Every structure is written in C-alpha cells, then in structure tokens.
C-alpha cells in the first residue's frame, strides 16, 4: 500500500500536476478569504476546464481549492472576525479573540499546522479505510443506495444552517429538474416538450455555475462591502509560544479524529465537525471559561476537524460514487466529465488515480503551510478589491466555461436563468446546496429506487430482508426527529427569552 502511495506522490514529478496543485491552493485560499465566493463557486466556474485537465489534473486542482478555501476562510476569521466560509465560523470565536490580544500570528500558525496534522491523519485514515470500505461497499445493492441517497439529502436539509422547510423545497426542485431528459431506465423522453436541447436534460454544469457562480457574483455586486483594514502579522510574529503549542497539539489530534469520522457520514460534515470539535474541547478542558476569550484549543480543534472531514468526505465519493456535500458533487461531476465513474470498484480499477488523489490532498496541505503563512499579508490585502471589479470577471468566466464544456448556447441560457433565479431565491433565504446535491443525486436515487421496485416486485416487505438499508433509513429517521425536536425546543427557548427582555436571543 505504501508503494501505491509512493507512486501517487511520484505522479507529482510531472510539473503540470505540481502547477495545478499550486494554482488550486492559491485559488482556494483566495475564494476562502473573499466572503461570498466559496469553493463551490470556484469549482463550478472551473468545471468547464476539467475535460482538458484530465481526471487526475482536475482532482488535484479541486482538492487544492477545497483545502485552500477552508484555510483561507480561517485567515479572515482570525484576523477580521469575518468567516470566509461556513466551516470557519467556529474558528472566529477564539481566533479573533487571540488577534485582539495581539496573538494573531500564533493563531494563524496554529490553524495552519493543525490543518496539516489533520491532513496527515486523514491520509492515514484513507489508506486504512478506503480499500476496506470498498470491499464492504461492493455488497451494497440498489436498496442500500436508495437509502444512502435519501440519507444524504435529508441529513443535509436537517443539519445545515437555514430553515429546514426551505431546504426541503430546494431538494424537491433539484429532484424535479433532474427528471428532465432521457429516462435512465427505459429510455423514454420526459418533459422535453419536443425540444432536442431538453432531451439531453439540464446540464449539471450550467445549473451549478448558475446558482453558485453567477448568483454569487450578483449577490456580491448587490451587497455593500467595506472590510476593515486588517493588520497582517509579520513573519517573526508567527511562532506560537511553547505553552500554546502544548495546548494546541492534543486538541488538533482530537479534532482530526472527530473530523475524519464525521466526514465518512452523510451530511455537511466539514461544518458540523468544527462545532463538534469545539464543544468537545470545551467539555474536556479544565478551564472551559477560557473558551471565547482566545483559547488555543478552540482554534486548533475545529481547524483540524474541518480539514480531516474534508479529506474523509472523499471516501464515500470515491468508494460509493455518492457525494454527500455539494463540493463533493462538483468533484464527482469533474470525474464523470472525464468518463470516470467512481464506485466500489474504483480503488481496485484505478489505483493510480486513487493514490494520486490522496497524494494531492497531502501536497495541498503541505503547500498551504509553506505558501500561505508568508503570504498572509497579501491575501488580506485582497479583501480591498471591490466586488464590482470582480463580478464581471466571474460572470465572464462562467459564460466561457459553460459554453466550452458543451458547445451549446442552450447551456449558457440555462446557466444565466439559473443564476438569476438562484440570486432571487438566495435573497429570500433559500440555500442552494441542497438543490445542487439533489440534482446530482437524482439519477442515482431514481435508478436505485426503480431497481429496488423491480427486485421487490412492488412488495415493501422486501426491504425487511435488506438490514443495511433498514438501518440507514432508521438512522435518518432518528437524526431528523432529534434535529426537529431540537429546533422546536430552541424556538420555545427563544420565545421565552424574548418575552422578559429581548437581549439574549443571540442564537438562531
């Protein structure tokens, strides 16, 4: 297995891959630093290029963006208290407090090193788990895939931020749009209204570029954005003290473990894992009162967790072919565009590609460490670029990208329409992540559902003979119930708190 990993690293002797890794990491940090544009936006804009890059090249680029963005997000969290990404919201709690106390340098270093540690842990995890999981995953049949798709969608709706009802609406919209075009089982044409363009279905790339790329650019342009000037620490101020390192190390390891395990489970793992790690650190700390005032563990744990979760999220994607997060959906799209269908036989059939991906993650983490700490000043200065200057550039890239991918003006129209619609829906509080995931999972969900129906001849009792599917579905029911009850209780508490004095209703 080490030979395989070594071969994966050897692929980076190819300078193209190395350049792609650097480009991905820098671009990822960039979109992580800039609020508004996230890794999904960046990946969707670049999706049009993936056939030129080949499967390994696109995976390397996307892994760099993915890891870079979590890192970039924490930079602004720490320096400005502006989380660039959802996964760095928790980092802001203690990270920015450290900045206020003049320890911004150590906070940034701890975040970077913790991410690196987590990357290492995640790679060992992948090496141990992925081949084993592949063997287990082969046994999964249509009913299990159906259950996993349902789990992925419902957990995303129940656990992600924002109102669950709106997420469910977006899932419904995504599933509905996914049915347009050729029926995957019988070859029937559905909802095409006699149009040849619709016979191919809506292009996933056009939809994603629309609701993420274009809609994000529009949102950015609409908002007023005057970031405070940030003071980036000098190079020699970056080293943490001995006490800070001693406190950070175990927290980073715990965070890595939590993140990795959560990353394997369906749902928005990267964000959840930061909360889980933060809560754990506070619970086991001897001085929990220090959390929120600049506790080192509060930076190290969550930063490690989101990175490990990001790495682990590749496992279900590569082994099952099912993405559980929108970023992974884009990685899947890049693979499919290159004619590679990940699944239980992927690790055995494409060992070279698999291990190159693993090596890519590691190299991305390493580059973040060596590139970004010295460049912190540069990245924070990027915040001064007015979004009005960035927006036309992003939209232009989207148009070129989507046209280049399919040579079809219809796709461009679909993208622009999706962008406009996405922009309006966003303003009304609808989240686009569930929509995108639903569009991606729709074919798998439909095919596995229809196959399950064929196996069972329509008899629901058949599912009783599929314990794995039953367990997955049962877990979904439990998770949804728990989260619904928690939401109800939170609302009651809020209402109670709002009555005597309106001061405390801080969390929503």
């Amino acid at each position, binding site marked *: 297995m080490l030979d395989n990993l070594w071969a994966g690293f050897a692929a980076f002797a190819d300078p193209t891959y190395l350049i792609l890794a650097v480009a991905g990491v820098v671009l990822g940090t960039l979109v992580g630093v800039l609020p508004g544009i996230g890794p999904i936006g960046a990946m969707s804009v670049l999706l049009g290029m993936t056939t030129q890059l080949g499967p390994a090249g696109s995976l390397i680029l996307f892994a760099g963006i993915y890891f870079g963005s979590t890192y970039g997000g924490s930079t602004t969290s720490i320096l400005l208290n502006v989380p660039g990404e959802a996964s760095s919201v928790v980092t802001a709690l203690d990270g920015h407090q450290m900045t206020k106390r003049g320890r911004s340098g150590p906070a940034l270093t701890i975040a970077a090193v913790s991410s690196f540690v987590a990357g290492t842990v995640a790679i060992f995890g992948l090496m141990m788990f992925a081949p084993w999981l592949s063997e287990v995953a*082969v046994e999964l*049949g249509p009913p299990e895939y159906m259950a996993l798709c349902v789990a992925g969608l419902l957990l995303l709706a129940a656990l992600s931020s924002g109102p669950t009802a709106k997420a469910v609406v977006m899932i419904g919209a995504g599933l509905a749009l996914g049915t347009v075009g050729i029926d995957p089982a019988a070859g*029937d044409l559905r909802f095409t209204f006699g149009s*040849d363009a619709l016979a191919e279905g809506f292009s996933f790339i056009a939809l994603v570029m629309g609701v993420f790329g274009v809609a994000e650019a529009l949102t950015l342009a609409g908002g007023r954005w005057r970031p405070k000037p940030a003071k980036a620490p000098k190079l020699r101020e970056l080293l943490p003290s001995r006490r800070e390192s001693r406190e950070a190390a175990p927290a980073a390891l715990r965070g890595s473990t939590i993140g990795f395990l959560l990353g394997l489970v369906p749902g928005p793992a990267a964000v959840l894992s930061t909360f889980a790690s933060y809560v754990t650190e506070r619970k086991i700390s001897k001085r929990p009162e220090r959390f929120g005032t600049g506790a080192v563990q509060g930076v190290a744990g969550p930063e490690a967790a989101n990175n490990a979760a990001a790495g682990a999220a590749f496992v279900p994607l590569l082994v099952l072919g099912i993405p559980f997060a929108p970023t992974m959906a884009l990685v899947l799209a890049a693979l499919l565009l290159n004619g590679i269908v990940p*699944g239980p036989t992927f690790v055995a*059939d494409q060992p070279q590609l698999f291990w190159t991906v693993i090596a890519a993650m590691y190299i991305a983490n390493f580059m973040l460490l060596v590139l970004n700490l010295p460049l912190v000043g540069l990245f924070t200065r990027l915040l001064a670029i007015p979004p009005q200057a960035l927006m036309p550039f992003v939209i232009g890239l989207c148009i070129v990208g989507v046209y280049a991918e399919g*040579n079809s*003006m219809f796709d461009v129209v679909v993208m622009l329409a999706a962008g406009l619609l996405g922009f309006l829906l966003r303003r009304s509080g609808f989240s686009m992540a569930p929509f995108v995931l639903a569009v991606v999972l729709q074919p798998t969900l439909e095919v596995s559902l229809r196959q399950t129906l064929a*196996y069972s001849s329509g008899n629901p009792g058949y599912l009783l003979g599929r314990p794995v599917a039953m367990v997955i579905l049962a877990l979904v029911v439990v998770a949804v119930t728990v989260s619904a009850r928690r939401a109800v209780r939170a609302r009651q508490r809020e209402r109670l708190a709002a009555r005597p004095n309106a001061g405390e209703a801080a969390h929503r």
Partner: protein
Amino acid sequence: MSISPIRTGRRAALPAIFLAGALLASACGGPPGQGTYPVRDIQIIVPYPAGSSIDTTTRALAEVINDQGTLGKRVQVVNREGGAGSVGTTATLNAKPDGYTVGVLPDGPLTLVPHTEEVSYDPENISVLNEVTISPVLFVVPEDSPYRDLGDLIDAAKARPGTITLGEGPLNYAVPAEKFEQLTDTRFQHIAFDGDQATTTALLGDNLDVGVMQLAGAFAQLRSGKVRALAIASAERTDLAPDIPTFREQDVALEWEAYNVVVAPPELPGAVATKLSDVFGSAVRSEAFTKAARDLGLVVSGAGGAAAEKRLTDKSAAAADLLAPAQ
C-alpha cells in the same frame, strides 16, 4: 417490463441549431471540392463524451490515421454527446456530404433506437465506410454462482420462472435478454442497469444472478476471475476470451454484437468514400490500433463498407420484431 416502445409524440423537426452547427463546421476553412480531396482537416464526430469507451477507441484510431499520414490532412475528434447517442448521430448524418464530417457511431442509434423512438435522421440512408470494433454480448454470473453453464441457467429459470434476476440495460442489452427468453421459453426478473460498470458492481456484491454485459465492459473482471461468463453471443469463440463458449454451442441460437462503425452522410461522392474507407480501413487493421482495442476488450473488425452495412441492416431487421410495439 423489459422493452417498452417509446411514443415520443413528435419531436419538432430538427432545430435549426444542429443544421447551423453542421453547416458551420463544414463551411469553415474555404470552399471544398477544389484540388484533390481532402484540402482541409476532417472532423470525426463521437456521440459520447470524452473519456467514454467509444471516445477512447476513436481517439486511438485518429492518432493512427494522423501518424500514418496517408490522408494528407489531419482528423480531429469532436464529442457531440447526449440523447443516448442521437445528438451525435444527427449531427453526422445531416452534415454536408463532402467528406469533411464523418462519425464513429455505435450501432444502437442506427439499428435499435429508430424502432422505439422518432429520430431526426434517416437510419436507412447513410454511407457506411467501415466497421471498427465489435463487442459481443455475454451472460455473466458471479464467481460462486450455482450456474456452471447455460443449461443450468435455463433449467433453473424453468423451475422458478420470473425469480432469477437478470441485469440488462440499454437496448443493446435489453433486446438480447428478451430474445434469449423467447428462444429458451424462459422468464426472468429484469432489472435495468445503466451500463456494464453498474452491472459488474451488482454481480460482485451478489445483488444480481445474471448480468447481460458486453465483452469490453466485463473484460477486466473476467480476467481477475471475480465473475464468469456462461456464454458469448458471437458466431464463434473470440480469441480475446477463448474459454467462453458461444450460445450456439449450448444450443441457443442467440447472436448479438454491438458494433462501432464509421459512417458519413448519404450521397457521399464515390471517390471521397473510397479514400475515406481506405484510410480508416488501414488504420483499423494497423498493429497500433489493434493493440489499443484489444486492451479495451474490443474485437477489431476491419470489415469494409458493404459488409458493415449488411450487418447493420440485418441487425435492424432482427430487432424490428422484438421491438415492435407490443405492449
């Protein structure tokens, strides 16, 4: 279940966009017909995305043609995917018949799809130049399956009609599955999978009793020994997998192969057709291409235009009975 004839109603006449695209493609680069053909590069349309099996095959072929240099100009592969191959087929057959647009097409859109769906091209009216590769259909079972040969399977299916699961998929899988049932008077529980990879996974996970697959799609797993083939639907055993007995050897008259063919729009000038057929034919028979195709599990054909056209017509006729609107 199995094969449902599709009534699409009318699919509006060809949208202008295809015609425009095809015209544009053939109009670029100056007036054709002056001097000796070809005066500019030729595009090969592939109706599936980059990276698909037929795309890999075609790109290997294009490389050989460009290396051999007998054409005098280069060939370029253009992917026009979508509509289960119908988009690229339409683009090929409705292009200007000047020899600057050819397609490497799977036979499905020419022989099978027109029976079930209204298509915006005429499958009868084409210039068939060469046959490139052949992919015979196989019946594949998991390694530890109780069925050792076709006889076992037929006996079991007769004993328990409608319970043994049979994985099929697109028409090139569904039709032979149906035909097998007719020939042997058996009935299976059909499950549709969307390609060889999905079928393989289901077989490996013991979620499927028998899979209808193509040799190319089953090749890797057959070699690793994780699945076994009960029978191959070619006239004779193939030297790519000489251990697999044919259906005929086991007294079932099933022959079903999928082909990739080089076609051009109808009314191609004779000289152009001859030139293209020679260039593609010698590339197909070249050592470099043969090796590339064999590695993919594809049988290299190399049959000329007339033979290839007859095979297409025969297959279409055979499919017509099975695909006749019965339900």
